[in-house]
Protein backbone atom coordinates (compact mmCIF):
# COMPACT_ATOMS: atom_id res chain seq x y z
CA UNK A 1 0.00 0.00 0.00
CA UNK A 2 1.12 3.54 -0.71
CA UNK A 3 1.82 5.56 2.43
CA UNK A 4 1.51 9.34 2.41
CA UNK A 5 3.25 10.65 5.52
CA UNK A 6 1.02 13.21 7.23
CA UNK A 7 3.31 14.75 9.82
CA UNK A 8 4.31 17.97 8.04
CA UNK A 9 1.24 20.05 8.71
CA UNK A 10 0.68 23.67 9.57
CA UNK A 11 -1.54 22.43 12.39
CA UNK A 12 1.52 21.13 14.27
CA UNK A 13 3.08 23.89 16.35
CA UNK A 14 6.67 22.82 15.68
CA UNK A 15 6.06 22.76 11.93
CA UNK A 16 4.19 26.07 11.95
CA UNK A 17 7.03 27.78 13.82
CA UNK A 18 9.64 26.36 11.44
CA UNK A 19 7.56 27.54 8.49
CA UNK A 20 7.20 31.03 9.90
CA UNK A 21 10.89 31.39 10.67
CA UNK A 22 11.94 29.56 7.48
CA UNK A 23 14.03 27.15 9.52
CA UNK A 24 14.42 24.08 7.25
CA UNK A 25 15.89 21.71 9.81
CA UNK A 26 12.81 20.59 11.79
CA UNK A 27 10.87 20.12 8.55
CA UNK A 28 13.65 18.19 6.85
CA UNK A 29 14.05 15.97 9.89
CA UNK A 30 10.34 15.22 10.01
CA UNK A 31 10.35 14.42 6.29
CA UNK A 32 13.38 12.17 6.57
CA UNK A 33 12.13 10.20 9.53
CA UNK A 34 8.80 9.52 7.79
CA UNK A 35 10.56 8.51 4.57
CA UNK A 36 12.83 6.09 6.42
CA UNK A 37 9.82 4.66 8.22
CA UNK A 38 8.31 3.72 4.85
CA UNK A 39 6.39 6.74 3.55
CA UNK A 40 6.23 6.80 -0.25
CA UNK A 41 5.00 10.40 -0.38
CA UNK A 42 5.46 13.22 2.11
CA UNK A 43 2.37 15.37 2.60
CA UNK A 44 3.20 19.09 2.74
CA UNK A 45 0.29 20.87 4.36
CA UNK A 46 0.76 24.63 4.38
CA UNK A 47 -2.93 25.31 4.99
CA UNK A 48 -4.55 28.30 3.26
CA UNK A 49 -1.15 30.10 3.35
CA UNK A 50 -2.60 33.39 2.25
CA UNK A 51 0.50 35.41 2.97
CA UNK A 52 3.57 34.66 0.82
CA UNK A 53 2.03 31.29 -0.01
CA UNK A 54 3.97 30.80 -3.21
CA UNK A 55 7.32 31.54 -1.68
CA UNK A 56 6.52 29.36 1.34
CA UNK A 57 5.52 26.32 -0.77
CA UNK A 58 8.56 26.65 -3.05
CA UNK A 59 10.80 26.81 0.00
CA UNK A 60 9.09 23.79 1.58
CA UNK A 61 9.34 21.63 -1.55
CA UNK A 62 12.98 22.49 -2.14
CA UNK A 63 13.97 22.05 1.50
CA UNK A 64 12.30 18.65 1.79
CA UNK A 65 13.50 17.21 -1.52
CA UNK A 66 17.04 18.28 -0.70
CA UNK A 67 16.99 15.52 1.95
CA UNK A 68 14.23 13.15 0.88
CA UNK A 69 14.28 11.51 -2.54
CA UNK A 70 10.56 10.93 -2.83
CA UNK A 71 7.59 12.67 -4.42
CA UNK A 72 5.50 15.08 -2.36
CA UNK A 73 1.79 15.47 -1.74
CA UNK A 74 1.08 19.20 -1.99
CA UNK A 75 -1.67 20.07 0.43
CA UNK A 76 -2.96 23.66 0.23
CA UNK A 77 -6.11 25.43 -0.82
CA UNK A 78 -4.04 28.33 -2.20
CA UNK A 79 -3.85 27.71 -5.95
CA UNK A 80 -0.92 30.08 -6.54
CA UNK A 81 1.02 28.34 -3.79
CA UNK A 82 0.13 24.98 -5.26
CA UNK A 83 1.35 25.96 -8.71
CA UNK A 84 4.59 27.26 -7.23
CA UNK A 85 5.00 23.89 -5.48
CA UNK A 86 4.38 21.96 -8.68
CA UNK A 87 7.00 24.07 -10.47
CA UNK A 88 9.56 23.51 -7.74
CA UNK A 89 8.86 19.77 -7.41
CA UNK A 90 11.63 17.44 -8.58
CA UNK A 91 9.87 14.65 -10.51
CA UNK A 92 12.95 12.44 -10.60
CA UNK A 93 11.50 10.18 -7.87
CA UNK A 94 7.90 10.27 -9.06
CA UNK A 95 5.09 12.61 -9.97
CA UNK A 96 3.73 14.96 -7.30
CA UNK A 97 0.26 14.47 -5.84
CA UNK A 98 -2.18 17.37 -5.44
CA UNK A 99 -4.27 17.32 -2.27
CA UNK A 100 -7.02 17.96 -3.43
CA UNK A 101 -9.86 18.67 -5.86
CA UNK A 102 -13.54 18.00 -5.22
CA UNK A 103 -16.89 18.47 -6.92
CA UNK A 104 -16.94 22.08 -5.75
CA UNK A 105 -16.45 24.45 -8.75
CA UNK A 106 -13.96 26.46 -6.70
CA UNK A 107 -11.67 23.43 -6.70
CA UNK A 108 -11.79 22.69 -10.45
CA UNK A 109 -8.69 24.85 -10.86
CA UNK A 110 -6.76 22.02 -9.21
CA UNK A 111 -7.61 19.74 -12.14
CA UNK A 112 -6.32 22.37 -14.51
CA UNK A 113 -3.03 22.45 -12.62
CA UNK A 114 -2.86 18.64 -12.52
CA UNK A 115 -3.19 18.58 -16.31
CA UNK A 116 -0.69 21.40 -16.82
CA UNK A 117 2.02 19.81 -14.64
CA UNK A 118 1.16 16.13 -15.31
CA UNK A 119 0.57 15.72 -11.60
CA UNK A 120 -1.48 13.12 -9.77
CA UNK A 121 -4.44 14.41 -7.82
CA UNK A 122 -6.68 13.39 -4.93
CA UNK A 123 -10.38 13.80 -5.78
CA UNK A 124 -12.58 14.13 -2.71
CA UNK A 125 -16.04 12.79 -3.48
CA UNK A 126 -17.82 15.71 -1.96
CA UNK A 127 -19.70 18.54 -3.65
CA UNK A 128 -20.51 22.10 -2.66
CA UNK A 129 -23.75 21.21 -0.97
CA UNK A 130 -22.94 19.17 2.12
CA UNK A 131 -21.59 15.70 2.82
CA UNK A 132 -22.45 12.62 0.75
CA UNK A 133 -25.05 10.40 2.39
CA UNK A 134 -23.77 6.97 1.38
CA UNK A 135 -21.46 4.99 -0.93
CA UNK A 136 -23.79 5.37 -3.92
CA UNK A 137 -23.76 9.15 -3.67
CA UNK A 138 -19.97 9.10 -3.38
CA UNK A 139 -19.82 7.01 -6.57
CA UNK A 140 -22.10 9.43 -8.39
CA UNK A 141 -19.82 12.32 -7.47
CA UNK A 142 -16.75 10.26 -8.42
CA UNK A 143 -18.20 9.57 -11.87
CA UNK A 144 -18.90 13.28 -12.40
CA UNK A 145 -15.37 14.15 -11.39
CA UNK A 146 -13.86 11.47 -13.64
CA UNK A 147 -15.76 12.95 -16.58
CA UNK A 148 -14.58 16.44 -15.65
CA UNK A 149 -10.99 15.23 -15.29
CA UNK A 150 -11.20 13.87 -18.83
CA UNK A 151 -12.37 17.30 -20.04
CA UNK A 152 -9.40 18.95 -18.36
CA UNK A 153 -7.03 16.33 -19.78
CA UNK A 154 -6.15 14.53 -16.54
CA UNK A 155 -5.72 10.79 -17.22
CA UNK A 156 -7.70 8.50 -14.90
CA UNK A 157 -4.54 6.75 -13.69
CA UNK A 158 -3.46 10.08 -12.17
CA UNK A 159 -6.54 10.26 -9.95
CA UNK A 160 -6.92 8.93 -6.41
CA UNK A 161 -10.58 8.87 -5.36
CA UNK A 162 -11.12 9.77 -1.71
CA UNK A 163 -14.50 8.79 -0.13
CA UNK A 164 -13.98 11.31 2.68
CA UNK A 165 -13.66 9.52 5.98
CA UNK A 166 -15.87 10.95 8.72
CA UNK A 167 -15.46 10.54 12.44
CA UNK A 168 -16.93 7.39 13.88
CA UNK A 169 -17.90 9.02 17.17
CA UNK A 170 -20.52 11.27 15.57
CA UNK A 171 -21.39 9.56 12.27
CA UNK A 172 -21.00 5.89 12.95
CA UNK A 173 -22.89 4.64 9.89
CA UNK A 174 -20.57 6.60 7.57
CA UNK A 175 -17.65 4.32 8.48
CA UNK A 176 -19.23 1.46 6.55
CA UNK A 177 -20.37 3.73 3.68
CA UNK A 178 -16.77 4.79 3.07
CA UNK A 179 -15.52 1.21 3.11
CA UNK A 180 -18.17 0.25 0.59
CA UNK A 181 -17.23 3.28 -1.54
CA UNK A 182 -13.59 2.06 -1.71
CA UNK A 183 -14.85 -1.19 -3.24
CA UNK A 184 -17.26 0.56 -5.62
CA UNK A 185 -14.78 3.22 -6.79
CA UNK A 186 -12.55 0.52 -8.20
CA UNK A 187 -15.39 -0.76 -10.35
CA UNK A 188 -15.80 2.61 -12.07
CA UNK A 189 -12.98 1.85 -14.50
CA UNK A 190 -10.82 -0.92 -15.92
CA UNK A 191 -8.01 -0.85 -14.82
CA UNK A 192 -9.54 -0.08 -11.41
CA UNK A 193 -9.52 3.48 -10.08
CA UNK A 194 -6.97 4.24 -7.37
CA UNK A 195 -8.27 5.12 -3.93
CA UNK A 196 -6.98 7.07 -0.94
CA UNK A 197 -8.18 8.05 2.52
CA UNK A 198 -7.16 10.45 5.24
CA UNK A 199 -7.11 7.68 7.82
CA UNK A 200 -7.00 9.55 11.12
CA UNK A 201 -10.30 11.32 10.38
CA UNK A 202 -12.02 8.14 11.55
CA UNK A 203 -10.79 8.62 15.11
CA UNK A 204 -11.21 12.38 15.36
CA UNK A 205 -13.00 13.27 18.54
CA UNK A 206 -12.54 9.92 20.30
CA UNK A 207 -10.46 9.73 23.50
CA UNK A 208 -6.78 9.95 22.66
CA UNK A 209 -5.85 6.54 24.06
CA UNK A 210 -8.32 4.84 21.68
CA UNK A 211 -7.36 6.61 18.47
CA UNK A 212 -4.56 4.21 17.54
CA UNK A 213 -6.76 1.14 17.89
CA UNK A 214 -9.56 2.67 15.85
CA UNK A 215 -7.17 3.73 13.07
CA UNK A 216 -5.58 0.29 12.90
CA UNK A 217 -8.79 -1.71 12.68
CA UNK A 218 -10.30 0.68 10.16
CA UNK A 219 -7.19 0.53 7.97
CA UNK A 220 -7.43 -3.27 7.84
CA UNK A 221 -11.03 -3.13 6.66
CA UNK A 222 -10.18 -0.55 4.00
CA UNK A 223 -7.20 -2.59 2.78
CA UNK A 224 -9.37 -5.66 2.54
CA UNK A 225 -11.53 -3.77 0.05
CA UNK A 226 -8.48 -2.81 -2.00
CA UNK A 227 -7.42 0.62 -0.74
CA UNK A 228 -4.48 1.96 -2.79
CA UNK A 229 -3.09 4.66 -0.50
CA UNK A 230 -3.54 6.26 2.92
CA UNK A 231 -2.55 9.59 4.35
CA UNK A 232 -1.34 8.42 7.74
CA UNK A 233 1.40 8.51 10.34
CA UNK A 234 4.24 6.19 9.31
CA UNK A 235 5.91 6.78 12.68
CA UNK A 236 3.08 4.90 14.40
CA UNK A 237 4.74 1.49 14.62
CA UNK A 238 1.61 -0.37 15.64
CA UNK A 239 -0.22 1.07 12.65
CA UNK A 240 2.64 0.14 10.31
CA UNK A 241 2.77 -3.38 11.80
CA UNK A 242 -0.97 -3.73 11.25
CA UNK A 243 -0.55 -2.66 7.62
CA UNK A 244 2.31 -5.11 7.03
CA UNK A 245 0.37 -7.93 8.63
CA UNK A 246 -2.71 -7.17 6.53
CA UNK A 247 -0.50 -7.26 3.43
CA UNK A 248 0.66 -10.74 4.48
CA UNK A 249 -2.95 -11.95 4.81
CA UNK A 250 -3.83 -10.38 1.47
CA UNK A 251 -0.91 -12.20 -0.16
CA UNK A 252 0.85 -8.98 -1.11
CA UNK A 253 3.89 -9.71 1.04
CA UNK A 254 5.60 -13.06 1.30
CA UNK A 255 5.65 -14.21 4.91
CA UNK A 256 8.97 -14.57 6.78
CA UNK A 257 9.44 -14.49 10.56
CA UNK A 258 11.06 -11.06 10.25
CA UNK A 259 8.45 -9.52 7.95
CA UNK A 260 7.76 -6.69 10.42
CA UNK A 261 11.39 -5.61 10.16
CA UNK A 262 11.25 -5.17 6.40
Amino acid at each position, binding site marked *: MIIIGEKISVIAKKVREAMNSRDPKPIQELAEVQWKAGAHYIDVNTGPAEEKGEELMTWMVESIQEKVHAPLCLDTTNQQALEAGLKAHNNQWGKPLINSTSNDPERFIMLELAAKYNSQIIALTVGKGGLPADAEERCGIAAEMMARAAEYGVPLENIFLDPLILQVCTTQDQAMHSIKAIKMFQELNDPPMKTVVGLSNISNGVPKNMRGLIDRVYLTLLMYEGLTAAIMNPLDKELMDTMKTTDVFLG*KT*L*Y*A*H*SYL*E*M
Partner: protein
Amino acid sequence: MAYVVPKESYNGKVLNVDFGKGDKALVIGGENALPFLSFEGELPNRPVIACEIQDTPPTDWPETVRNVYKDVSGDPVTWAKYCQNDLKAKAIALRLVSTHPDRDNRSAEDAAKTIKDVLSAINVPLIILGSNHIEKDASVLVAAAEAASGYNCIIGKAQEGNYKTIVAAALAHNHKLIAMSELDINLAKQLNILITQMGFDKEKLITDPMCSALGYGLEYTYSVMERIRLAGLMQNDATMQPPILGDVGMYVWKVKETVASEADVAEWGPLEERGTAWEALTATAMLIAGTNLLIMRHPKAISIVEKTIAELT
Protein backbone atom coordinates in the same frame (compact mmCIF):
# COMPACT_ATOMS: atom_id res chain seq x y z
CA MET B 1 -6.07 -3.87 -36.09
CA ALA B 2 -2.73 -5.67 -35.84
CA TYR B 3 -2.38 -8.37 -33.21
CA VAL B 4 -0.67 -7.11 -30.07
CA VAL B 5 1.16 -9.66 -27.95
CA PRO B 6 -0.18 -9.46 -24.38
CA LYS B 7 2.71 -8.66 -22.09
CA GLU B 8 3.14 -8.95 -18.36
CA SER B 9 4.87 -6.06 -16.66
CA TYR B 10 7.15 -6.54 -13.67
CA ASN B 11 7.95 -4.29 -10.75
CA GLY B 12 11.24 -5.82 -9.63
CA LYS B 13 14.54 -7.04 -10.97
CA VAL B 14 16.83 -9.94 -10.10
CA LEU B 15 20.12 -8.72 -8.65
CA ASN B 16 23.34 -8.99 -10.62
CA VAL B 17 25.97 -11.14 -8.98
CA ASP B 18 29.46 -11.39 -10.45
CA PHE B 19 32.03 -14.00 -9.52
CA GLY B 20 35.54 -14.93 -10.53
CA LYS B 21 38.07 -12.43 -11.77
CA GLY B 22 39.72 -11.22 -14.92
CA ASP B 23 38.33 -11.99 -18.35
CA LYS B 24 36.82 -15.31 -17.15
CA ALA B 25 34.64 -13.60 -14.53
CA LEU B 26 30.91 -14.21 -14.89
CA VAL B 27 27.74 -12.34 -14.08
CA ILE B 28 24.39 -13.96 -13.34
CA GLY B 29 20.98 -12.42 -12.73
CA GLY B 30 19.94 -8.92 -13.77
CA GLU B 31 16.69 -9.95 -15.47
CA ASN B 32 13.42 -8.05 -14.99
CA ALA B 33 11.21 -10.71 -16.55
CA LEU B 34 10.51 -14.39 -16.02
CA PRO B 35 13.03 -16.86 -17.51
CA PHE B 36 13.60 -16.54 -21.27
CA LEU B 37 10.64 -14.17 -21.78
CA SER B 38 12.87 -11.69 -23.57
CA PHE B 39 9.86 -10.02 -25.20
CA GLU B 40 8.71 -8.87 -21.77
CA GLY B 41 11.91 -7.44 -20.35
CA GLU B 42 15.68 -7.43 -20.19
CA LEU B 43 17.54 -10.69 -19.65
CA PRO B 44 21.13 -9.45 -19.75
CA ASN B 45 22.91 -12.57 -18.49
CA ARG B 46 22.58 -16.19 -19.57
CA PRO B 47 22.28 -18.86 -16.90
CA VAL B 48 25.67 -20.40 -16.05
CA ILE B 49 26.47 -24.10 -15.68
CA ALA B 50 29.31 -24.99 -13.32
CA CYS B 51 30.97 -28.38 -13.66
CA GLU B 52 31.10 -30.25 -10.36
CA ILE B 53 34.27 -31.82 -8.99
CA GLN B 54 35.21 -32.94 -5.49
CA ASP B 55 38.26 -33.13 -3.28
CA THR B 56 38.37 -36.91 -3.21
CA PRO B 57 37.80 -39.59 -5.89
CA PRO B 58 34.05 -39.90 -6.59
CA THR B 59 33.60 -43.42 -5.31
CA ASP B 60 30.02 -42.57 -4.37
CA TRP B 61 29.07 -41.46 -7.91
CA PRO B 62 27.42 -44.06 -10.14
CA GLU B 63 29.60 -45.63 -12.80
CA THR B 64 28.10 -43.69 -15.71
CA VAL B 65 29.35 -40.37 -14.45
CA ARG B 66 32.36 -41.72 -12.53
CA ASN B 67 33.80 -43.24 -15.70
CA VAL B 68 33.85 -39.90 -17.51
CA TYR B 69 36.37 -38.61 -14.99
CA LYS B 70 38.22 -41.85 -14.18
CA ASP B 71 41.58 -40.64 -15.51
CA VAL B 72 41.49 -37.26 -13.80
CA SER B 73 39.46 -37.57 -10.63
CA GLY B 74 42.28 -38.99 -8.52
CA ASP B 75 43.33 -35.45 -7.74
CA PRO B 76 41.19 -32.29 -7.68
CA VAL B 77 43.75 -30.12 -9.50
CA THR B 78 43.95 -32.47 -12.50
CA TRP B 79 40.16 -32.83 -12.43
CA ALA B 80 39.63 -29.07 -12.36
CA LYS B 81 42.06 -28.53 -15.22
CA TYR B 82 40.31 -31.21 -17.25
CA CYS B 83 36.95 -29.49 -16.77
CA GLN B 84 38.36 -26.12 -17.72
CA ASN B 85 40.64 -27.11 -20.59
CA ASP B 86 38.99 -30.17 -22.12
CA LEU B 87 35.32 -29.71 -21.26
CA LYS B 88 35.50 -25.89 -21.59
CA ALA B 89 33.60 -25.43 -18.33
CA LYS B 90 32.73 -21.78 -17.68
CA ALA B 91 32.90 -22.34 -13.93
CA ILE B 92 33.89 -25.13 -11.56
CA ALA B 93 32.16 -26.18 -8.36
CA LEU B 94 34.47 -27.90 -5.89
CA ARG B 95 32.68 -29.91 -3.24
CA LEU B 96 34.75 -30.61 -0.12
CA VAL B 97 33.06 -33.93 0.63
CA SER B 98 36.11 -35.47 2.26
CA THR B 99 35.75 -33.09 5.19
CA HIS B 100 32.48 -34.74 6.24
CA PRO B 101 32.87 -36.56 9.57
CA ASP B 102 31.27 -39.68 8.06
CA ARG B 103 33.67 -39.66 5.09
CA ASP B 104 37.37 -38.96 5.66
CA ASN B 105 36.80 -36.18 8.20
CA ARG B 106 39.65 -34.20 6.70
CA SER B 107 40.54 -30.96 8.37
CA ALA B 108 39.73 -27.40 7.44
CA GLU B 109 43.47 -26.88 6.82
CA ASP B 110 43.49 -29.75 4.29
CA ALA B 111 40.51 -28.18 2.57
CA ALA B 112 42.26 -24.81 2.46
CA LYS B 113 45.29 -26.36 0.80
CA THR B 114 43.14 -28.09 -1.82
CA ILE B 115 41.45 -24.81 -2.62
CA LYS B 116 44.73 -22.96 -3.01
CA ASP B 117 46.05 -25.69 -5.31
CA VAL B 118 42.94 -25.69 -7.46
CA LEU B 119 42.75 -21.89 -7.65
CA SER B 120 46.34 -21.63 -8.81
CA ALA B 121 45.69 -24.18 -11.58
CA ILE B 122 42.56 -22.64 -13.14
CA ASN B 123 41.37 -19.24 -14.27
CA VAL B 124 37.61 -19.86 -14.50
CA PRO B 125 35.52 -18.89 -11.44
CA LEU B 126 35.35 -21.33 -8.55
CA ILE B 127 32.37 -22.25 -6.41
CA ILE B 128 33.43 -23.76 -3.09
CA LEU B 129 30.93 -26.09 -1.40
CA GLY B 130 31.16 -27.72 1.99
CA SER B 131 30.12 -31.28 2.75
CA ASN B 132 26.68 -30.20 3.93
CA HIS B 133 27.48 -30.96 7.56
CA ILE B 134 26.24 -27.98 9.57
CA GLU B 135 28.97 -27.88 12.24
CA LYS B 136 31.87 -29.00 10.09
CA ASP B 137 31.00 -26.64 7.25
CA ALA B 138 31.20 -23.72 9.66
CA SER B 139 34.92 -24.35 10.20
CA VAL B 140 35.74 -25.68 6.72
CA LEU B 141 34.12 -22.80 4.86
CA VAL B 142 35.79 -20.21 7.08
CA ALA B 143 39.19 -21.69 6.19
CA ALA B 144 38.12 -21.97 2.56
CA ALA B 145 37.06 -18.33 2.38
CA GLU B 146 40.43 -17.27 3.71
CA ALA B 147 42.35 -19.55 1.34
CA ALA B 148 40.43 -18.13 -1.60
CA SER B 149 40.79 -14.52 -0.52
CA GLY B 150 41.00 -12.23 -3.54
CA TYR B 151 39.46 -14.72 -5.99
CA ASN B 152 35.85 -13.51 -5.70
CA CYS B 153 34.52 -17.04 -5.30
CA ILE B 154 31.05 -18.23 -4.41
CA ILE B 155 31.09 -20.09 -1.11
CA GLY B 156 28.35 -22.14 0.49
CA LYS B 157 26.19 -23.27 1.73
CA ALA B 158 25.17 -21.07 4.62
CA GLN B 159 22.18 -22.56 6.41
CA GLU B 160 20.04 -21.59 9.38
CA GLY B 161 22.31 -23.54 11.75
CA ASN B 162 25.66 -22.13 10.66
CA TYR B 163 25.16 -18.95 8.66
CA LYS B 164 26.70 -16.53 11.16
CA THR B 165 30.28 -17.76 10.92
CA ILE B 166 30.09 -18.42 7.19
CA VAL B 167 28.60 -14.99 6.45
CA ALA B 168 31.34 -13.34 8.52
CA ALA B 169 34.00 -15.23 6.54
CA ALA B 170 32.46 -14.35 3.17
CA LEU B 171 32.23 -10.74 4.30
CA ALA B 172 35.85 -10.64 5.50
CA HIS B 173 37.23 -12.16 2.31
CA ASN B 174 34.84 -10.56 -0.13
CA HIS B 175 33.18 -13.66 -1.56
CA LYS B 176 29.69 -14.30 -2.80
CA LEU B 177 27.53 -16.54 -0.66
CA ILE B 178 24.97 -19.29 -1.18
CA ALA B 179 22.13 -19.22 1.36
CA MET B 180 20.34 -22.56 1.50
CA SER B 181 17.05 -23.48 3.06
CA GLU B 182 15.09 -26.69 2.74
CA LEU B 183 12.23 -26.32 0.27
CA ASP B 184 10.42 -23.63 2.20
CA ILE B 185 10.00 -20.23 0.60
CA ASN B 186 9.25 -18.48 3.90
CA LEU B 187 12.43 -19.84 5.46
CA ALA B 188 14.36 -18.89 2.30
CA LYS B 189 13.18 -15.33 2.74
CA GLN B 190 13.89 -15.38 6.46
CA LEU B 191 17.46 -16.61 5.94
CA ASN B 192 18.11 -13.87 3.38
CA ILE B 193 16.81 -11.29 5.86
CA LEU B 194 18.98 -12.63 8.69
CA ILE B 195 22.07 -12.66 6.49
CA THR B 196 21.56 -9.11 5.24
CA GLN B 197 20.84 -7.95 8.79
CA MET B 198 24.43 -8.99 9.56
CA GLY B 199 25.58 -6.33 7.11
CA PHE B 200 26.05 -8.73 4.19
CA ASP B 201 25.17 -7.03 0.93
CA LYS B 202 22.11 -8.64 -0.70
CA GLU B 203 23.84 -8.12 -4.03
CA LYS B 204 26.37 -10.78 -3.04
CA LEU B 205 23.82 -13.42 -2.19
CA ILE B 206 22.62 -16.47 -4.10
CA THR B 207 19.54 -18.38 -2.96
CA ASP B 208 19.47 -22.17 -2.95
CA PRO B 209 15.95 -23.31 -2.09
CA MET B 210 17.24 -26.92 -2.31
CA CYS B 211 17.17 -29.00 -5.43
CA SER B 212 15.57 -32.37 -6.08
CA ALA B 213 15.63 -34.80 -8.97
CA LEU B 214 12.96 -35.52 -11.52
CA GLY B 215 10.61 -38.02 -9.94
CA TYR B 216 11.89 -37.26 -6.43
CA GLY B 217 10.24 -33.99 -5.49
CA LEU B 218 11.23 -31.86 -8.47
CA GLU B 219 7.79 -30.25 -8.44
CA TYR B 220 8.42 -28.91 -4.92
CA THR B 221 11.71 -27.32 -5.93
CA TYR B 222 10.15 -25.99 -9.10
CA SER B 223 7.26 -24.44 -7.24
CA VAL B 224 9.44 -22.79 -4.58
CA MET B 225 11.79 -21.37 -7.21
CA GLU B 226 8.91 -20.05 -9.26
CA ARG B 227 7.31 -18.39 -6.23
CA ILE B 228 10.65 -16.81 -5.27
CA ARG B 229 10.90 -15.32 -8.77
CA LEU B 230 7.31 -14.09 -8.69
CA ALA B 231 7.82 -12.44 -5.28
CA GLY B 232 10.97 -10.72 -6.52
CA LEU B 233 9.58 -9.62 -9.88
CA MET B 234 5.86 -9.06 -9.32
CA GLN B 235 5.81 -7.92 -5.67
CA ASN B 236 9.25 -6.29 -5.86
CA ASP B 237 10.23 -8.14 -2.69
CA ALA B 238 13.86 -7.07 -2.29
CA THR B 239 14.66 -10.08 -0.11
CA MET B 240 13.66 -12.43 -2.92
CA GLN B 241 15.75 -10.90 -5.69
CA PRO B 242 19.09 -12.73 -5.43
CA PRO B 243 19.87 -15.18 -8.25
CA ILE B 244 18.85 -18.81 -7.69
CA LEU B 245 21.13 -21.85 -7.57
CA GLY B 246 20.15 -25.31 -8.79
CA ASP B 247 22.55 -27.89 -7.35
CA VAL B 248 21.35 -30.55 -9.74
CA GLY B 249 24.07 -33.20 -10.09
CA MET B 250 24.20 -34.45 -6.53
CA TYR B 251 20.46 -35.02 -6.42
CA VAL B 252 20.21 -36.74 -9.81
CA TRP B 253 23.14 -39.13 -9.67
CA LYS B 254 21.80 -41.25 -6.88
CA VAL B 255 18.22 -41.99 -7.94
CA LYS B 256 17.48 -45.46 -9.26
CA GLU B 257 16.82 -44.27 -12.81
CA THR B 258 20.44 -43.09 -13.08
CA VAL B 259 21.90 -46.10 -11.29
CA ALA B 260 19.93 -49.24 -12.19
CA SER B 261 21.78 -51.36 -14.75
CA GLU B 262 20.42 -52.38 -18.12
CA ALA B 263 20.58 -56.02 -16.99
CA ASP B 264 18.17 -55.23 -14.16
CA VAL B 265 15.74 -53.01 -16.06
CA ALA B 266 16.17 -53.62 -19.77
CA GLU B 267 12.91 -51.83 -20.55
CA TRP B 268 14.35 -48.54 -19.24
CA GLY B 269 16.88 -48.37 -22.07
CA PRO B 270 20.62 -47.64 -22.13
CA LEU B 271 21.95 -46.50 -18.75
CA GLU B 272 24.18 -43.66 -19.92
CA GLU B 273 21.49 -42.10 -22.08
CA ARG B 274 18.97 -42.50 -19.28
CA GLY B 275 21.25 -40.88 -16.69
CA THR B 276 22.28 -37.92 -18.80
CA ALA B 277 18.68 -37.35 -19.87
CA TRP B 278 17.64 -37.41 -16.21
CA GLU B 279 20.21 -34.78 -15.28
CA ALA B 280 19.50 -32.62 -18.36
CA LEU B 281 15.75 -32.71 -17.80
CA THR B 282 16.01 -31.86 -14.12
CA ALA B 283 18.34 -28.96 -14.93
CA THR B 284 16.09 -27.68 -17.73
CA ALA B 285 13.10 -27.64 -15.38
CA MET B 286 15.17 -25.60 -12.90
CA LEU B 287 16.02 -23.10 -15.65
CA ILE B 288 12.38 -22.65 -16.57
CA ALA B 289 11.56 -22.09 -12.90
CA GLY B 290 14.12 -19.29 -12.65
CA THR B 291 17.54 -20.79 -11.85
CA ASN B 292 20.51 -18.61 -12.76
CA LEU B 293 23.32 -20.97 -11.77
CA LEU B 294 23.40 -24.76 -12.21
CA ILE B 295 25.87 -27.25 -10.78
CA MET B 296 26.02 -30.40 -12.93
CA ARG B 297 28.11 -33.52 -13.36
CA HIS B 298 27.84 -35.27 -16.72
CA PRO B 299 29.45 -33.42 -19.69
CA LYS B 300 26.79 -34.75 -22.07
CA ALA B 301 23.99 -33.48 -19.86
CA ILE B 302 25.77 -30.12 -19.60
CA SER B 303 26.02 -29.81 -23.37
CA ILE B 304 22.33 -30.69 -23.82
CA VAL B 305 21.36 -27.95 -21.36
CA GLU B 306 23.79 -25.45 -22.91
CA LYS B 307 22.11 -26.10 -26.23
CA THR B 308 18.67 -25.53 -24.70
CA ILE B 309 19.86 -22.24 -23.18
CA ALA B 310 21.24 -21.15 -26.54
CA GLU B 311 17.95 -21.96 -28.26
CA LEU B 312 15.85 -20.14 -25.69
CA THR B 313 18.07 -17.06 -25.45
